């Protein structure tokens, strides 16, 4: 285990590992080590020592943080200026038994895990403006900048976001931050099945009310919410969120309730309740402390319910939808392949990631969606362009 104190230490550690041919496990704060294929590594590169916020300019809407900085520190610093990360980073640590709120900011971008707000505000990758990193040969490089509009050279930020530490070890990230909206309202619709819920979400998202997030919880999942309006409903709950200055959030909420009334009875959540619900959904709380394998499906929204219906015919499953139906969290009963073949077969488009399963299962089936041959070959060449010896998180995304 190496614990560098600064970027130069990281460079040295990777250069040494490259020279010796030692595969490295790249770790931020270690909350999501269970995500991806199990790896054989000779040593760990622990980036938690790189902590701090060298630049924060609230009226420029930009922050730079060292990669190991706790996300909690970043969020607290932003909150003090009434700002936030609009992609609502998903805190998946608890799914793997890690404590809540313990992730690093580098890990957030490396796994490109965005919460419910992704629908309107974009993913983590859309907020990453620049970074510094060490590639697999131990070279220190930078890409991007600190401004939003920038097309100078290839956008390697996008490439590194979601690369799960397999291309380079990020040492510093610069990202866009946004004001916290003055008011948030969530409209609840009760009693819809998946198909009707999808239609309700499409109607809301196709309205001019700038819907920020839209989710649907079938009855059994809704029951597990800590928000009484949701758990006490005893039925499926569809949730639609709007934000903005007070008069407009209220206006949007009212208009949506009227327009969605034909779908079923509605209710609205304010401030705390609304925040709690969306946090639960973003972090997949309904499936925390649950031994079942967990999948995350990204699909064209209209195809979600159909895919789920096909899957539910072949296995025991429980699920809920986010991103207007485009994201499905799916828990299935344990089996040798966690249902991989049937689930991937059922998708009409998009991809399925096995977010949580025993090591043995994640060794047996691809965790990430397998790609067509020319694309897989290209991805391999891209990996080699950054990490020719394959020493950074080897095999994690294979």
């Amino acid at each position, binding site marked *: 285990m190496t614990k560098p104190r600064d970027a130069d230490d990281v460079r040295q550690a990777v250069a040494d590992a490259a020279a010796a041919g030692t595969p490295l496990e790249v770790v931020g704060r270690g909350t999501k080590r269970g995500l991806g294929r199990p790896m054989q590594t000779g040593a760990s590169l622990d980036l938690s020592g790189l902590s701090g916020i060298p630049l924060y*300019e609230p*009226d*420029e809407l930009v922050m730079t943080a060292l990669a190991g900085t706790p996300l909690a520190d970043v969020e607290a610093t932003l909150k003090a200026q*009434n700002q936030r990360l609009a992609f609502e980073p998903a805190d998946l640590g608890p799914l793997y038994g890690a404590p809540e709120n313990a992730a690093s900011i580098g890990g957030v971008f490396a796994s*490109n895990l965005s919460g419910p707000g*992704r629908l309107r505000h*974009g*993913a983590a*990758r859309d907020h990453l403006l620049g970074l510094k990193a060490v590639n697999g040969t131990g*070279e220190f*490089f*930078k*890409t991007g900048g600190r*401004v939003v*509009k*920038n*097309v*100078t*050279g*290839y*956008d*390697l930020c*996008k*490439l590194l976001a*979601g*690369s799960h530490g397999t*291309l380079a070890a990020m040492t510093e990230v610069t990202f866009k931050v946004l004001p916290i909206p003055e008011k948030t309202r969530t409209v609840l619709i009760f009693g819809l099945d998946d198909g009707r819920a999808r239609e309700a979400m*499409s109607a809301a998202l*196709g*309205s*001019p009310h*700038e819907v920020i997030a839209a989710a649907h919880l079938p009855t059994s999942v809704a029951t597990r919410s800590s928000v009484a309006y949701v758990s006490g409903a005893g039925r499926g709950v569809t949730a639609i969120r709007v934000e*903005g200055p007070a*008069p*407009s959030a209220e*206006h*949007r909420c009212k*208009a949506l309730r009227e327009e969605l009334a034909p779908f079923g009875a509605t209710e609205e959540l304010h401030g705390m309740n609304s925040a709690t619900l969306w946090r639960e959904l973003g972090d997949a709380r309904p499936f925390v402390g649950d031994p079942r394998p967990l999948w995350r499906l*990204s699909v*064209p*929204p*209209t195809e979600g319910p159909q895919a789920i219906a096909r899957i539910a015919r072949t296995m025991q499953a429980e699920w809920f939808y986010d991103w207007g139906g*485009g994201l499905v969290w799916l828990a299935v009963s344990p089996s040798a392949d966690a249902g991989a073949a049937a689930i991937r077969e059922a998708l009409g*488009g*998009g*991809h399925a990631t096995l977010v949580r399963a025993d090591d043995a299962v994640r060794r047996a089936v691809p965790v*990430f*969606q397998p790609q*067509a041959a*020319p*694309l*897989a070959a*290209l*991805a391999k*060449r*891209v*990996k*080699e*362009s*950054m990490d020719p010896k394959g020493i950074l998180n080897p095999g994690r995304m294979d």
Partner: protein
Amino acid sequence: MALRMPAPDQDVLARRREIVAALREIVPGEGVIDAEDELRAYECDALSVYRQLPMVAVLPSTTDQVSRILRYCHENRVRVVPRGAGTSLSGGALPLADGVLLGLGKFNKILDIDYANRTVTAQPGVTNLGISTAVASSGFYYAPDPSSQIACTIGGNIAENSGGVHSLKYGLTTNNVLGIEMVLVTGEVIRLGGKHLDSEGYDLLGLVTGSEGLLGVVTEVTVRILKKPSTARAVLIGFPSNEDAGDCVAAIIAAGIIPGGMEMMDRPAIHATEDFVHAGYPLDVEALLIVELDGPKVEVDHLIEQVAGIARARKSMTLRISQTEEERALFWAGRKSAFPAVGRITPDYMCMDGTIPRKKLPEVLARMRELSEKHRLRFCNVFHAGDGNLHPLILFDANKSDELERAEKFGADILRLCVEVGGVLTGEHGVGIEKRDLMDTMFDDVDLAQQLRIKCAFDPESLLNPGKVFPVLHRCAEMGRMIVNKGHLPFPDLPRF
């Protein structure tokens, strides 16, 4: 022109007839152009000071044809330059003397409109505005709106990661594209993304967006569409100085307001546009700000009052709020025709495109005035103020002995200045050939070598749009073995081009 492009491959030029014949096998009829007078149409893009006739132009209309063209060129080591509408301002579509110009103009169909999933799938030659028009009757639109939107193609937008006045709130191309079909230089066809969100492996879609035609040829595009906001209103605010206008922009953002658009013009730009479109701009102000708010009427009315309050507290001299849709359009008319308006007052102009941290605006404007004196050339400024993207227009006359050269030097100084204050060389127009030789002001050799290795992963022989974006051309085989010492590449005196 002083610009050096890769030396034409004599061997390829000698095989021209054979190459033309092979292309005719793939694209029959009029899809292959080799007559000099017809090739003139492709000799430059909107950076028209640089011109070059291509060896041959080919206009395929199917992905299969693109695939076969690229496979042929790859097997026969022929360079290829993709082209959309040719509105690039950085020379991205400048042909090569020994290259095939691959025009995507025939890819002009909308393939799928999906309101339930809020997506449009189109061929790459469809214009940016064409997408919005196709869904307008249902109240939807495609958000990124470059000023060139009636002409530029969605494929070109992907290649340049184009933005527009509404990108402040709604993002650039990269934030609004969901999927593409792309042909690799080998002729292999890949699909990245689709109607779903986020990529399944590496985000190659994000990498390809903004890659200026160097990584592959885009043959199909799926974008996200949005419902039109129910109301939009604009405020036109005049200030006694650029500094005051800059302060106002910062204060609006600091108040937590993200307007739909926030644009600024300086005095010379105000006068040029007012003379041209008679938008009713005040002529006694030094800087003009257009702030547009969109959303439900209650929100727009609420925020517009807040913006007006902020402006009044910051020395605004004039302030008008649009009362009708016509008036809002009029406020924009001047800004949107800034380029042609400036074109009327000068024989030639060069449009720069740096981005800076917003708060550096007063400093940068002051130093640009000094540079203007140093290079003895006038300039004016239009500015995507909300996101710090500057468009200084340098006025010159290419027919006067050294003015073009002075304009290029002035432009390069402006871009260096942008980088010096923490900004970047290009916000939305791309590096192309125009800023290629300035890349080292932002990136050191290691940074550039890493980017070039990415290029090698896609196109090891550097056949796709070579000579653009990167100042140094190394063989990919060398890249792999390159040992970097204290940030210096070995053999720094290897031939550059």
